[in-house]
């Protein structure tokens, strides 16, 4: 829940840009961070970014099937190519009231 926590995930390979991954609700709690900077490689899609986040934070795998993924504030169902400066959001539903 610490809103300012950020992480940097480098791929070590040919870097073509960076994508900011924003984690919400339970995803933020499980990962312990709210924002991740992902180094992306050539040809990467939202699916690659998603997997990179799962690899870095395996705790997120528990809720991988129930998270909504949005690229630049647009919901994505199929993998979409990402580019430098994109913003990826992982949004699990919350149910409290």
């Amino acid at each position, binding site marked *: *829940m610490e*809103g300012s926590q950020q992480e940097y995930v480098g791929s070590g390979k040919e870097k073509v840009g960076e994508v900011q991954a*924003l984690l*919400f*609700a*339970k995803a933020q*709690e*499980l990962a312990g961070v709210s924002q991740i900077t992902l180094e992306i490689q050539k040809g990467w899609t939202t699916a690659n970014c998603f997997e990179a986040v799962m690899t870095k934070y395996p705790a997120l795998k*528990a*809720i991988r*099937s*129930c998270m*909504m993924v*949005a690229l630049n*504030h*647009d*919901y994505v*169902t199929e993998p979409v190519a990402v580019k430098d400066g994109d913003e990826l*959001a992982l*949004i*699990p*539903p*919350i*149910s*409290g*009231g």
Partner: protein
Amino acid sequence: MFFVFFHKMADFTLELEALRVENARLKEKLKQHLLVEDMLLPSSSNLPRAVIGMNREGGENACPAPPWIAGLSHSLTAAQIQRYSRQLLLPSFGVKAQENLCKGSVLIVGAGGLGSPVALYLAACGVGCIGIMDPDRVELHNLHRQVIHNEASVGETKVSSASRTCLAINSSVKVVEYPFGLDARNALDIMAQYDVVVDASDNVATRYLVSDACVVANKPLVSGAALGMEGQLTVYNYLKGPCYRCLFPTPSPQAACQRCSDAGVLGVVPGIVGTFQALEVIKVLTKVGEPLSARMLILDALSSRIHTVKLRGKNTQCVACGELPQITHITLPNFDYEKFAASPMSDGTPPREQVVGEDQSITCTDYNKLVRGHKSHVLVDVREKHQYDIASLPDSLNIPYAKLPQQLDTIRAAAQKHKHEGDEDMSVYVICRRGNDSQRAVQDLRSAGFNLVYDITGGLLSWAQDVDSTFPAL
């Protein structure tokens, strides 16, 4: 002189009698009027109690026609015009929108943190009929966020408390009380009587049920949720927009959400989300503005940021609203939502899990005897530190469950320290809030080679119940 007086008396008596007759006639007329209005509003045939504000404004009061001319196109009374004047003055709103509100009906599922502002604002702005549904009673720990209730309503049903507050604000609206939970069998019948449904519930199972029932009953759903410092808001099933299942076809796995370390919530967060829900209801009922359909608003209260994510359209494969729906008015009443969501239709205590056997646990009462007998031991409290800091048992060691694997040596050292010459192995007792995490910890510690590890059954909640009623168990 006497005669004149007597004559006046007779006059007076006659007049009084005439007034009495007139009064009875008007009362009857008023009764008829209220009955007719009730029939126009959602029926209350299968309902326990419908509360109607008695100071109905407007209507025919046997008064002479007012010396002013109402706009030909509307039916608002002088009292309504006065009451709603500040929203009538809005150019984008006006009399038509107000008429739609006054004719409109809304079912609010949940009279808690979200439902409070929804009901308050909808009553205040004049929504004609407000159904409020909630099986719970008001508790003291509700009051920091459920602002429709107050200290005097602790112990009362939430619906009756909420209804009283709504009518105190606006006695001209009708409030229908449902002091029970929404379930698969009652959902469709109740929803059929309303124009819009508000999901202000507090659990996953109810959220799927509300969404499915709205699809089957063809009602727009204004859905809000709040937890911790975050909120989410969407209008589902509106025009061609998606439903809840289109976005979240599979519920969160139980493991990820049912821990002892339940997240808290800051009161204003559901307050903000619920207020947004009231706004969306007003927009849907009045057709003013652009409802939050196929979009999700996400409130991050910590950073004061609001994100709006554009959502997908309907999923053609959706089991509820897709091309071949499996959830219909026939199947829905028999659908087991609690099983599907693997969680109960309440936010109350999650079911107690049984992870370790009786030979590896001790009741609070027995543990208390052991402490009083000064038997040396180690007590480990596996709650999160911020919970531990609120209140804890004396001489306990706080090792949050998540950090247990790295802290085994700390426990070993504590056991060593308490050990006297010739003692056998030191017993370790584990406690948490409700006794679920502590059982997992006992399992983990046994796997790590600790032999005498015991779970204190039921955790600190049981401690407060069975041993020390002054302990502030949360």
